[in-house]
């Protein structure tokens, strides 16, 4: 490749990524050379501004036609834009939380590391959403994973944090191995790593032996990626890692990393496995295997919600709750209705706000109390009515009570599962049933906040960043619940129903 071709690429498509790369390089250097006394929180604000700049640059690209550079390894289509936006918004909010994070044993020495590792993790997720090639997809996945491993263990002197990072690395490696193994089948059969080429080649595939091997690949990739989604059967790491990791990292894992997981899942599954004809060649493999995904979605919902009932630790509880939410999104993925992209996108948007809002308050309380027991939420209404009411909004939304974004998200998925034919009414019923189960633990927190006397009456100090997150999330959660059309209009005008996903 000569310089001329290199320069002829439309590099502007990668604008948001470049901003993040440059920012993380600058942060690394600054952290290295700035004197110890310098407050590393400033670096956090720098990272925050970089993410905002990336959002602005991405918004500037919204009108662009679908484009790809670097031999179709990087493509910017509607799907990439829409989900990148979610990743960036989620990250911006998590950064605000991270700036205010101050665990008991202190984080002064490593705070700088936190921010640039965070940005590289985000970069990995963004690359994943824009990949048109298995290689770049995998590189993005690993960039995200490796950054998150270190982030989880950032509280070096905290035993739990160490344990969490350790478990995360080991499980992550296993999942990577499985995913890669599955991908190697794909490469072996098609001889290509480019998603478009592979899908074109697989369309004409007729040999049932190959189809069977592709089926194996499907399951290996799915199970491997289930790690990122924290869904069955690769869900067990989540509670331990979520509990031990620093709270902003937990928030990052449960929101940004999970979105990235779904992004790569959809990217691979829809572009490759919906092209493989099975049986008499009329239905694609992805539809043929729906029952398997549906089964895993069901088990994920049941397990996440039922085991959550017994948790006393708020972060573990949210780990199980996030497993359950992955199950709900998998229902939409199973149904593959024509509103699948819209409903998954909307659900994640809602999830970004309601979950990060809840984590903001969790961080505030656990940090203050030095423990993560649910009991510390007791009497929150007396200590700070605003916090209690906003937390109630987030919890109601997570539980899917009408009037909140969470309800619209669930309703979309629900209608989507019923509007396809044959309709997935069993899955839809399990979704309702498990939602009802989730009321028990969500309302357990509500009972704590509103109906229990506080152990102490001290007021809670609200740092500016956390405050902003709470307000933004609460407003968005209610706004999207009352006027969801805002988000759907945005989708309609800018992404044209994701028509350009395949071409």
């Amino acid at each position, binding site marked *: 490749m000569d310089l001329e071709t290199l320069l002829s690429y439309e590099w502007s498509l990668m604008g948001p990524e470049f901003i993040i790369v440059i920012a993380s390089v600058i942060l690394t250097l600054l952290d290295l050379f700035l004197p110890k006394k310098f407050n590393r929180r400033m670096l956090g604000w720098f990272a925050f501004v970089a993410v905002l700049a990336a959002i602005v640059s991405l918004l500037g690209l919204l009108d662009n036609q679908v484009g790809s550079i670097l031999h179709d390894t990087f493509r910017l289509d509607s799907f990439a834009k829409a989900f990148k936006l979610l990743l960036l918004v989620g990250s911006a909010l998590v950064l605000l939380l991270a700036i205010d994070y101050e665990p008991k044993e202190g984080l002064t020495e490593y705070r700088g590391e936190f921010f640039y590792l965070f940005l590289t993790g985000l970069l990995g997720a963004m690359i994943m959403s824009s990949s048109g090639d298995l290689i770049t997809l995998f590189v993005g996945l690993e960039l995200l994973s490796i950054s998150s491993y270190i982030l989880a263990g950032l509280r070096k002197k905290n035993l739990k944090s160490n344990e969490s990072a*350790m478990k995360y690395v080991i499980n992550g490696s296993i999942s990577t191995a499985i995913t890669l193994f599955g991908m190697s089948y794909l490469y072996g059969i098609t001889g290509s790593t480019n998603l478009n080429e592979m899908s074109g080649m697989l369309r004409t595939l007729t040999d049932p032996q190959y*189809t069977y091997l592709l089926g194996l690949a499907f399951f290996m990739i799915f199970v491997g990626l289930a790690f990122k989604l924290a869904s069955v059967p690769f869900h*067990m790491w989540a509670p331990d890692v979520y509990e031990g990791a620093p709270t902003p990292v937990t928030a990052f894992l449960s929101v940004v990393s999970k979105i990235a997981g779904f992004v790569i899942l959809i990217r691979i599954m829809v572009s490759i496995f919906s092209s493989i004809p099975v049986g008499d060649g009329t239905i694609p493999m992805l539809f043929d295997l729906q029952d398997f995904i549906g089964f895993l979605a069901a088990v994920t919902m049941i397990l996440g919600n039922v085991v959550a*009932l017994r948790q006393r630790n708020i972060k573990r509880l949210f780990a199980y709750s996030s497993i359950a939410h992955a199950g709900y999104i998998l229902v939409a993925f199973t149904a593959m209705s024509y509103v699948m992209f819209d409903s998954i996108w909307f659900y994640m948007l809602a999830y970004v706000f309601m979950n990060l809002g809840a984590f903001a308050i969790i961080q505030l309380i656990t940090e203050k109390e030095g423990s993560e027991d649910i009991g510390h939420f007791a009497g929150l209404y007396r200590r700070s009515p605003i916090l209690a009411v906003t937390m109630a909004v987030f919890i109601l939304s997570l539980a899917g009570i009408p009037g909140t974004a969470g309800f619209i998200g669930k309703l979309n998925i629900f209608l989507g599962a019923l*509007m396809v034919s044959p309709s997935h009414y069993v899955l839809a019923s399990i979704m309702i049933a498990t939602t009802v189960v989730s009321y028990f633990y969500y309302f357990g927190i509500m*009972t704590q906040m509103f*109906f229990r006397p506080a152990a102490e009456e001290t007021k809670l100090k609200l740092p500016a960043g956390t405050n902003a997150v709470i307000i933004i999330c609460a407003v968005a959660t209610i706004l999207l619940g009352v006027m969801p059309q805002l988000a759907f209009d945005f989708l309609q005008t800018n992404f044209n129903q994701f028509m350009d996903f395949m071409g």
Partner: protein
Amino acid sequence: MENAWLIPLFPLLSFLALLLFGKRLKEASAYVGILLTLASLVFSVIVLVGRLTGATYKLEADWLQIGDLQLTVGFEVNQLNALMLVIVSLVSFLVHTYSKGYMHGDQRFPVFYAYLGLFTFAMLGLVLSPNLLQTYIFWELVGVGSFLLIGFYFNKESAKAAAKKAFIMTRIGDVGLFIGMILLFWQTGSFEYDEIFASVHAGEVSGTMITLTAILIFIGAVGKSGQFPLHTWLPDAMEGPTPVSALIHAATMVAAGVYLVATMFPLFAASETAMSTVAIVGAVTAIFAATIGLTQTDIKRVLAYSTVSQLGYMMLALGAAGYAAGVFHLMTHAFFKALLFLAAGSVIHAVHTQDIEKMGGLWKKLSFTAPLFLIGTLAISGVPLFSGFFSKDEILIAAWANGNYILFWLAVIAAFFTAFYMFRLFFMVFSGKARSEMKNVHESPVSMTGPMIVLGILAVVSGYVNTPWFGTFLGDWLVEGNEALGHGHIEGPAWIMIVATVVSLAGIYLAYLMYSKRSISRDWFTSRAPTLYSIVVNKYFIDEIYQTTIVYATKAISLFLRFIEMFLVNGLVQLVTGIVRGLGKTGAKLQNGQIQTYGTVAFLGLAVLLLIFALTGGYLNG
């Protein structure tokens, strides 16, 4: 009527204002709440007057587009809505006023008013909704509001439990409503009431589907209206402050179930089975709750069971095609039951106990409350000339005219029980000798007696809007222009009115003999049928049955899953890792076998998937 959408917004404003400034306003919060609900009331009355002369008004706007689906929001003012608006806003306004005295001195006074505002907002929003989805949204919000209000005295463990129970019990019903709603949407392609009814009328929905959806929606109503077998939350919900009971458990939330069935009446009417189900559940609930009411000794619990029983009457009326009768009873009941609750609150306020065994001789001491309580008791007992008499009579006629003779007689017997236990309550509280420990008994302040007087007047006169003697204005107006709702008034044999009067008076007389004159021993019945008595006094052991079945089942499932996750899988793995560990003796704390478990689970999962895939996919043969 164009401005009807403002009505729910006033209480919402009150909620938001008190949330933000409640702490500073302290007890002045009451004025914010009272004034804003007064505004709602004024608007509601204007709307009702407008609807009396005008036509139905409906306004809608696009809300959400999912694919090709277009969902709308808006509001509608028809006869039923207009009437409900006035009932809800009036009772809410009176309860707001009453609470100023009742809750005086409570530390969380502003919070209480904030919750009241939220609840009233949700209830008014529910009433205005022109489609099922919007109804469902407010339906859930009403649930949230009542959750907060019932659990208001949170330092009482029982109040907390009651709040949770109420929320989850009604939620079981809500699942039915939700599924019914989605099924209807699936069949008719719309959430709009008119469109649903139109396609049901046009025969586009199969008969089975109509029955199924109607019954599912009815399950939602059963939960909210405390009908058998989901009634157990309602008596427990008496743990909430008494004004709350008057608001939620007399006039609004529990009536929402009846309101829902009334709104969906054309759907129900299209299915014989659904109608009989509603009628039977209603009649069974009416008699069932009335028998429990006979044995309770807590003043509010007696009223709670009587509410359950009266709601059963309304359901019976609707199920027996007596649309007008059901709605009529909903209205009169809202007034006299709210009155009874407020009066009971006034008694509790004066004597600081809820146990009627400890009360007595309060007639002279509570010179306002006692006569007002008597008016409420007479109305609910169906004594002629009081409102309850006319509405109950309409229900009995509807049941008779519909040919449900068994249900009719059940309702008559329930009427006898009602008269008996209500007067038992009255005599035990107000007659007899005053207890020595009740020395400092004072009548409640004007803010409390005022609302009671208003309700007292309504409990007497509200019956006269629909009587066989002076004309059935309400019934005729309610069904005007809508044939699906049946007749506004059903002619029935004259003897029904006489029977109703006789059983009611007989019940009162028996109560008089047993509890006031005491010429019949109170233990006459208990000593003769101790087993039966113990069953009834324990509320037929319904709670216990739930406890042993549902609650334990959930716990068992959760334990079971944990067992699998923690022990079974862990055990398998430990077998393997045990060897490894024994060899390496790695004492590292991190390697406690758990990480291996996680990896193993993933591998096992993958293996199982692949195995099933290989077996079912048929690829092996190809």
